[in-house]
């Protein structure tokens, strides 16, 4: 079996909703049926066959050859299999994913991994604002899984993170980890203003002391932490980082004491 491949014909004339093109939804479908799936959002909406040349026969392994910032909701609600985008993705890539793997080899737009429940998303380039975060009106952000951005991410990264791991390796914008409920956020390459703003629980792991930290965080000592050893080993073994991040006895801030204050910011001494 060869990967079910969607080769882009030209830059799409409108924003597309690619959420119908997931392993589960395409299972058992013939190529000519797949070509009729409506993806466009306008009055004369594009169908898959207008935008892509479609080939291959393995719906568990989907490849988008060539990406676009107009590819919204790539792999949204996916629960198994693998989707690879050779290029950029638009907004909400991997939103509400429950399982499987999504690899974006270029950049992703805002709300990538929004509300994820499980599975693994890797973005080789940069991600927009609200990485893993809820849409307006939703109470919690990511609730499981692993979300890795090799480049940088925008503001409100891991907003309202509840469970799972978000790792950004090229630096994150302002308010990273704001309103975190629990879970783990790893940022190397620097964070913007007010990391962990209004976080209740959870861990934010940084590669250096944060600037612009809210005064409602307090320093809480630096004893030896077995947790630091465990998470360092996990991040290296899992291929997220090349070298341990925290070391044996990282510095720790507790906060945000403006709310319950059970969260933590950890960074190496």
């Amino acid at each position: 079996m060869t990967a079910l491949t969607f080769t882009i014909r030209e830059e799409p004339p409108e924003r597309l909703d690619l959420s119908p093109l997931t392993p589960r939804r395409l299972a058992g479908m013939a190529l000519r049926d797949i070509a009729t799936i409506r993806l466009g959002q306008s009055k004369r909406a594009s169908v898959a066959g207008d935008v892509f040349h479609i080939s291959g026969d393995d719906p568990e392994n989907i490849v988008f050859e060539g990406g676009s910032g107009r590819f919204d909701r790539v792999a949204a609600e996916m629960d198994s299999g693998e989707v690879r985008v050779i290029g950029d993705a638009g907004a909400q890539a991997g939103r509400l994913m429950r399982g499987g793997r999504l690899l974006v080899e270029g950049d992703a737009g805002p709300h990538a991994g929004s509300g994820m429940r499980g599975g693994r998303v890797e973005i080789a380039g940069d991600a927009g604002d609200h990485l893993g975060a809820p849409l307006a009106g939703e109470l919690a952000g990511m609730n499981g899984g692993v979300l890795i951005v090799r480049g940088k991410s925008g503001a409100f990264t891991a907003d309202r993170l509840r469970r799972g791991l978000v790792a950004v390796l090229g630096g994150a914008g302002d308010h990273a980890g704001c309103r975190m409920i629990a879970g783990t956020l790893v940022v190397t390459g620097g964070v913007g203003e007010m990391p962990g703003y209004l976080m209740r629980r959870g861990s934010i792991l940084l590669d250096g002391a944060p600037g612009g930290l809210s005064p409602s965080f307090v320093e809480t000592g630096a004893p030896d932490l077995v947790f630091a050893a465990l998470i360092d080993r996990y991040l290296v073994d899992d291929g997220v980082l090349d070298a341990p991040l925290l070391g044996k006895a990282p510095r720790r801030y507790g906060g945000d004491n403006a709310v319950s204050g059970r969260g933590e910011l950890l960074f190496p001494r």
Partner: protein
Amino acid sequence: MPQLEVNGVAIDDTFAEAFGMRATAIVITGPNRKWARQAAVSMTGFATSVIGCGCEAAIDVELEPSETPDGRPGFRVTLFAVSTDELQKQLQARVAQCVLTSPGSACFAGLDGPNLLKLGAALRYFGDGWQISKKIGGRHFWRVPVMDGEFLCEATTGMTKEAVGGGNLLLLADSSANALAAAEAAVAAINTVPGAIMPFPGGVVRSGSKIGGKYKGIIASTNEAFAPTLRGAVKSALGTDINAVLEIVIDGETADAVAAAMRAGLGAVTGLGPEKGAIRISAGNFGGKLGKFLYHLKDLLP
């Protein structure tokens, strides 16, 4: 009793009789080997026999830093009990009193399996609301703030229902010193067998017991057939050349682990020869009435 012989050591053609148990294992780590071992030794203290201690427990193997989840020195400890409830109770009490309290310790699951016992899931309440739950790579941990930092404990550990307790060897010698030398050789050999522990002091039992006794309510009493000072007074199993008997009792996570341990012990003792160790090797059984696992010595000879 028909006799076999290896390297001049007589071996009774008899069998050790063992019974099914529940077992669990944990990995204890510490800031260094000394303190990891201290926590493991404390938690396996007074865990020689289920008759009086609730469980039988001992260190199974020492782990190199590269073999433990947190990269620190560690020990794998196994616990055996007769029921799941009792095993859970003993595990919880011993980890709470001896591992949680030990400086720099951490505690991880040491056994996989479909049956789970609570580990950190029970101890987290010590954190009085400040405990932190963490899921790392599919494993669930609890971080409990303590005075030297944090006690990290995996939420659950596995339990096996395939465990076997009561494998044994009786080492009969012409002197106490030779009996002890034989026992020490057997313990050293069995210590290299994974999944098998010897819960008695240093792995050795001097008080081989029989079930019941003449006094009302007593569960076990001295095994007079193997007590040299009673030779002549009772129906003794000892010849005139035997002056001391020591027993090795073995619990295994599987029936095969017990067999491997007994084989290793037999090899070590027969290797020592009758002048430096045991003249004769036997095994304890209750005529097949105690348990379903029978280990015939003739099948385990080196």
